[in-house]
């Protein structure tokens, strides 16, 4: 492996990691503040992607789709919170897992009924249609860089909101000590509804933004679901900083790690199992290793 490839893989990993961060950050705040495991988080990513497709077709531009899609997703999040999630506060994790597992089944079938089962592509905006040459063979799509930049900006905004604003203060108080916010007389009902809506909107926003790059097809929600849980758990539940670090680790694992494993594709560990068969396993092995080292994730607080 030469240095150029190494650098490009680094870039690929960071870019994928940034997208994962955007998805996982919503999950981690819902986790951290409300104590709710939302397995249906990936479904909101899926809804975002499909909204990008149908709204872009309708309005002609991904930017209009973003403008309309984000409030729609926020309302959907609010609706789900009011109808279902509200019953889960103070219930144990098991019931949260189950109820949101049920939601996944419903979301998937609704997608099939509303949008059909064909794969679709979402056009990129005209001014981002070009690619930037990296080597004489490969170039980098401008939209991917745009996507990475947007994710970075959003990460910055999130940092600012959490550290500097009143809402952020409540969020921080809530994730470190849920009883505290009640004692302070903050209306948890409103706070929880807001947080859940924000969390799911982030997933939908990731879906909206990623749709032109990743296309839209059935099952995309579940593809990001488990991996974003891995990110959240590695980073430590409730920690946005942790989600960022976790997302970067998974992103790099996916690009650099896989390239390295594939370099050993002729090494057989046992009959029928060669080293490059282990690419999928490594992500989970990393997560398990980190949890065994730090049972509450990298930046999580042990409870």
């Amino acid at each position, binding site marked *: *492996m*030469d240095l*150029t*490839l190494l650098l*490009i*893989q680094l870039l*690929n*990993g960071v*870019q*994928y990691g940034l997208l994962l961060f955007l998805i996982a950050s919503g999950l981690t705040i819902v986790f951290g503040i409300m104590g709710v495991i939302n397995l249906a988080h990936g479904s909101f990513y899926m809804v975002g992607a499909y909204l990008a497709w149908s709204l872009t077709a309708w309005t002609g531009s991904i930017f209009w789709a973003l403008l309309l899609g984000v409030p729609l997703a926020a309302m959907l999040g609010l609706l789900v919170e009011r109808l279902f999630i509200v019953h889960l506060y103070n219930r144990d994790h098991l019931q949260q897992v189950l109820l949101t597992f049920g939601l996944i089944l419903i979301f*998937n*079938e609704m997608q*099939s009924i509303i949008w*059909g*089962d*064909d*794969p*679709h*592509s979402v*056009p990129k905006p005209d001014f981002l249609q070009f*690619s930037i*040459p990296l*080597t*004489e*063979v*490969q*170039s*980098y*799509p401008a*939209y*991917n860089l745009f996507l990475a930049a947007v994710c970075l900006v959003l990460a910055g905004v999130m940092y600012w909101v959490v550290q500097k604003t009143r809402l952020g203060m409540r969020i921080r108080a809530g994730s470190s000590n849920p009883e505290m916010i009640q004692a302070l007389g903050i209306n948890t009902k409103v706070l929880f509804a807001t947080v859940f809506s924000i969390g799911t909107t982030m997933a939908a926003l990731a879906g909206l933004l990623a749709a032109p790059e*990743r*296309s*839209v*097809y*059935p*099952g*995309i929600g579940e*593809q990001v679901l488990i991996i974003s849980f891995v990110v959240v758990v590695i980073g430590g539940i409730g920690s946005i900083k942790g989600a960022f670090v976790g997302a970067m680790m998974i992103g790099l694992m*996916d*690009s*650099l790690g*896989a*390239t390295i494993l*594939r370099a050993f*594709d002729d090494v057989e560990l046992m009959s029928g199992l060669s080293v*490059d*068969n282990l*690419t*999928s396993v490594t992500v989970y092995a990393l997560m398990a290793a980190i949890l065994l080292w730090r049972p509450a994730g990298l930046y999580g607080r042990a409870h």
Partner: protein
Amino acid sequence: MSTRKTYSRRGALGLMGAAAGVGTLAGFTPTKFAIGQQAKVRVGTLLPYSGTYARLGEAITNAMQMRFAQSKEMIGSREIELIKLDSEAAPPKATENTSKLINSEKVDFLVGPVHSGVAMAMAKIAREEGVMTIIPNAGADQITGPLCAPNIFRSSFSNWQPGYPMGRVLGAEGKKRVVLCYWNYGAGQQSAQGFKDGFAESGGEIIKEIGVPFPEVEFQSVLSEIASLKPDAVYTFFAGGGAVKFVKDWAAAGLKDSGIELTGSGFLTEGVTEAQGAAAEGLRTTLHYADTLDNDVNNVFRRNYKEMWGSEADVYAVQGYDAAEMIRVALEATDGDTGAKDDMIKAIENTVYDSPRGPFKLSAAHNPVQNFYLRKVVNGVNEVQSIAVEALSDPAKGCRLG
């Protein structure tokens, strides 16, 4: 012909009743089915009617219904009745669903599925029960290889088949360094093996095999690796959403103009060129069919299909159509006597006919012997360039039939 969309709920209801100790044991009376000349021939379809592959299941079913309707709804003095069951494209459910059709619905013919894992599960039970079975899509090589059986037929292809001709084509064109890139699961591995077998004689070299975990679609790092290897060509196996994304990512990474040719099994550009847009232009793939295939049978078939269903026929519709044709041949040979299995099997084995895909017959292992076409995407349509390999038969390693 009537399409009864239901199946008995006696079994399930009775079971619940009994299990709850209620004792509605009447529910367990076996569904007696007289094989009389008046009774309808029961054809069970185990196809995906929901989820990712639902479109394929629909096309196959539509074409079957069309073929049966063309036979004036009566074949060998008996009417046909379709019993549809959603395969959910999930192997753990497949054995159960197959049992439901065979043991509970007592179907005379079983048609399905789309997914290779489901096909493996289905074939296991179909072998044990000896039910006439036609696979209208799933390509798992094993089913017409070591697991072949007298009562199991395929109207589609083996995964090996669409790979082999592309290997031959690139070999003949003198491509020296080729990279294989595919979803690392059964279908992808077997497709890649087909390519390797076709490419082997040319003296070219496979410089790298990149297996992407199925169904991951994060391709950036794979593309970077391919770019750094600078091969003459790449052979790929991706389908559906993965095919859309790979082709678009390939173009966006600038590889389309790099001199590295992207090729694949036909599924890379089948039914997804609209979503791929300009990125798909010029891609060459090999498959046993193309929408633009210009022969009389295909032209008539496509016109009729459009008239009946309002949408364009595709390769899956052709496979469903030929599955129905096999059933028709079998019933005609025995005048509708579904008990005469040996005669039905012989009739299907001896079929030589003009399918919309061109000349069609079955190998000793019951897999189609068919032409493979080299296709190129022009204006969003897979246009036939030439016949890449004529009357290609699967090697059927390990099959003891015939």
